[in-house]
């Protein structure tokens, strides 16, 4: 059977499963549509949260990012997992006790203000659309690479699938589809990792393989990797090059941002009890950790495999690989543009080294090299891994199904929070307060359908800034929604004026700082280099300062204005204890 046919079969089979689940679990009330009737088992919710959380970027790009960043890649590993501790301890149980459908609804009730609710909706929509555009792009790319259709066709197929189960099934359909998608993506991710770890170190567990010796030699894998890349002028893999304060702030911004992302928070509204919400966060992290502890092993091992392929002698003293003798996978991925070779010194060999290191320049010159000749896209680390390691065709087909599962599950979760914000927080609460449950369900479905079309359009015509604004989503969530929710639970003194002033100042500061260095809509106002940064903090980490500003402004403004009314204090006392958390209720 050809690889092409095998890929069609595997991907087609997963689609049939997703649609089957959607038909079986379609939503009949707004409770089903927004929060799956609050009847999801905590382990199932853990898996769904994991699939929701791990996007095409986690699946396809993260291992590659780590492979080329080394220790600095730890910001993503700790940042995108540590947020779950904050969620489980500080947010999930209390928001579940509060018991309504959306994050803006909580902010609006707690701060007794429709303006606060609208500010929260604006933050939510901006964060979620930024994210979803990237996901739809991911769907299109995976389709076009593995199924050899053009990006538009791939995108339309992906939109169609999401349309069927998100519009029909709402949160209920999405939840059970995500459980299936988690199984597909984690299987697809770990199988090649186990093969590669075993080939390289003799230990099948990648988490242990990364700390093991290279097969048949008495040198540790990481020592070998450090040595071969340092010989080529790169920094040691296990050391970083970012400053400590920047690593600290980026990690914290990603953690807090994770805990403030609406599509993640809302998953904890779907479990039956407060105690389930706490436990479910643990399950979610366990399922996420399976991928997140494997990724650094995949990254390091693939980097070593790549370098040793280009330098067959294992050191730059010997000759580099001749271009004519390049392996088959090199030829395959060259066609996609993910690998590129430019013979700068005309010797027909592929010199791969760090030409940005001034200390290494004399060595390179003495060897007759005229610049790095190999360009590697980081996505190749996961996508081409099975081929580099000579794994069977069915593993390659699995990677395609896994990448599509990762992108679809995240897109669906995001589209759902967008549609609930529109139908529940805008249409129902502001414009048509006496709408029936049926009418609201229909509005939710229409909003989801419109959101899919907008996301599809953004995926096909990505505004040039899609890649850059992903940092936005985390920074803005960290600086706007997270502090408002935390203060709403842990303080009885923070009032309407304080919360609105805090959210707006956190949001504007973070937005402004990122625009200042990244431009996005215009030429950046200053060069994005450490010398120009505030306290040496990059735009990726600035959400931390925005968050502190939000807390500070909210505190001061609340002190200067009237305390919240008595019924708000009672509401806070009530969400702090688990007893009395009922089923779904809207108002």
């Amino acid at each position, binding site marked *: 059977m050809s690889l092409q046919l095998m890929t069609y079969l595997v991907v087609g089979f997963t689609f049939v499963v997703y649609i089957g689940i959607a038909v079986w679990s379609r939503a009949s009330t707004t409770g089903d549509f927004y929060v799956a009737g609050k009847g999801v088992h905590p382990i199932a919710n853990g898996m769904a949260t994991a699939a929701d959380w791990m996007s095409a970027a986690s699946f396809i790009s993260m291992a590659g990012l*780590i492979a080329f960043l080394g*220790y600095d*890649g*730890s910001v993503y*590993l*700790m940042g995108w*997992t*540590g947020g*779950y*501790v904050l969620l*489980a*301890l*500080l947010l999930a*149980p209390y928001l579940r006790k509060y018991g309504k459908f959306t994050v803006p609804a909580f902010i609006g009730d707690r701060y007794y203000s429709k303006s606060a609710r609208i500010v929260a909706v604006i933050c939510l929509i901006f964060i979620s659309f930024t994210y979803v555009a990237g996901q739809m792009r991911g769907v299109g790319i995976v389709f076009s690479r593995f199924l050899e259709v053009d990006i538009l066709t791939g995108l339309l197929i992906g939109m169609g699938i999401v349309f069927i189960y998100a519009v029909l099934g709402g949160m209920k359909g999405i939840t059970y589809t995500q459980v299936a998608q988690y199984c597909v993506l984690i299987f697809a991710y770990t199988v090649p990792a186990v093969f590669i770890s075993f080939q390289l170190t003799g230990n099948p567990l990648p*988490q*242990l393989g*990364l*700390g*093991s*010796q290279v097969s048949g030699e008495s040198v*540790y*894998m*990481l*020592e070998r990797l450090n040595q071969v890349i340092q010989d080529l002028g790169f920094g040691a893999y*296990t*050391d*970083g090059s970012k400053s*400590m304060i920047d*690593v*600290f702030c980026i*990690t*914290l911004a990603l953690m807090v941002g994770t805990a403030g992302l609406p599509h993640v928070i809302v998953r904890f509204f779907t479990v039956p*009890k*407060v*105690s389930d919400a*706490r*436990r479910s*966060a*643990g399950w979610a*992290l*366990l399922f996420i*950790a399976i991928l*997140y*502890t494997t990724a*650094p092993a995949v990254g390091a091992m693939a980097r070593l495999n790549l370098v040793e392929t280009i330098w067959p002698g294992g050191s730059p003293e010997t000759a580099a690989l001749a271009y004519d003798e390049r392996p088959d996978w090199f030829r395959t991925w060259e066609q996609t543009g993910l690998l590129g070779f430019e013979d700068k010194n005309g010797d027909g060999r592929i010199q791969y080294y760090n030409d940005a290191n001034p200390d290494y320049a004399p060595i390179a010159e003495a060897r007759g090299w005229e610049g790095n000749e190999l360009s590697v896209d980081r996505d190749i680390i996961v996508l081409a891994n099975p081929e580099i390691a000579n794994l069977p065709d069915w593993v390659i087909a699995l990677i395609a199904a896994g990448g599509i599962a990762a992108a679809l599950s995240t897109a669906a979760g995001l589209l759902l929070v967008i549609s609930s914000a529109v139908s529940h927080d805008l249409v129902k609460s502001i414009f048509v307060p006496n709408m029936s449950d049926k009418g609201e369900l229909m509005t939710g479905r229409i909003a989801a359908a419109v959101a899919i079309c907008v996301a599809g359009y953004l995926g096909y015509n990505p505004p040039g800034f899609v890649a850059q604004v992903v940092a936005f989503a985390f920074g803005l969530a960290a600086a706007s929604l997270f502090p408002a929710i935390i203060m709403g639970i842990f303080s009885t003194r923070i009032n309407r004026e304080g919360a609105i002033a805090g959210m707006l100042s956190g949001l504007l500061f973070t937005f402004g700082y990122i625009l200042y260095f990244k431009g996005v809509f215009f030429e950046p106002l200053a060069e994005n280099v450490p010398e120009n940064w505030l306290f040496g903090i990059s735009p990726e980490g600035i959400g931390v300062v925005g968050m502190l500003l939000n807390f500070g402004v909210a505190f001061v403004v609340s002190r200067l204005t009237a305390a919240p009314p008595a019924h708000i204090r009672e509401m806070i*006392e009530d969400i*702090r*204890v*688990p*007893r*009395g*958390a009922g089923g779904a209720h809207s108002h």
Partner: protein
Amino acid sequence: MSQNASREAYWTANLKLMAGCLAVWFIVSFGLGILLVEPLNSFQLFGYPLGFWFAQQGAIYTFMVLIFFYAWRMNKLDREHDVHED
């Protein structure tokens, strides 16, 4: 004990437990994985430099244990203070 005093005691106990867990959360990630990474890297855990291991593996394992520990302790606390569900 009146209901209010009991709820007060429950909340204080919860905050203490939370502070302890967050201290561990901070130490394994920001402490051992970032601030102290260089001195720790002079120790080895099998083939891993120790600080590097915390940053790319150890912190994540600790986070998992922390959440399950907190959930378990809170369930006990809910019952001791008679605020549990059903």
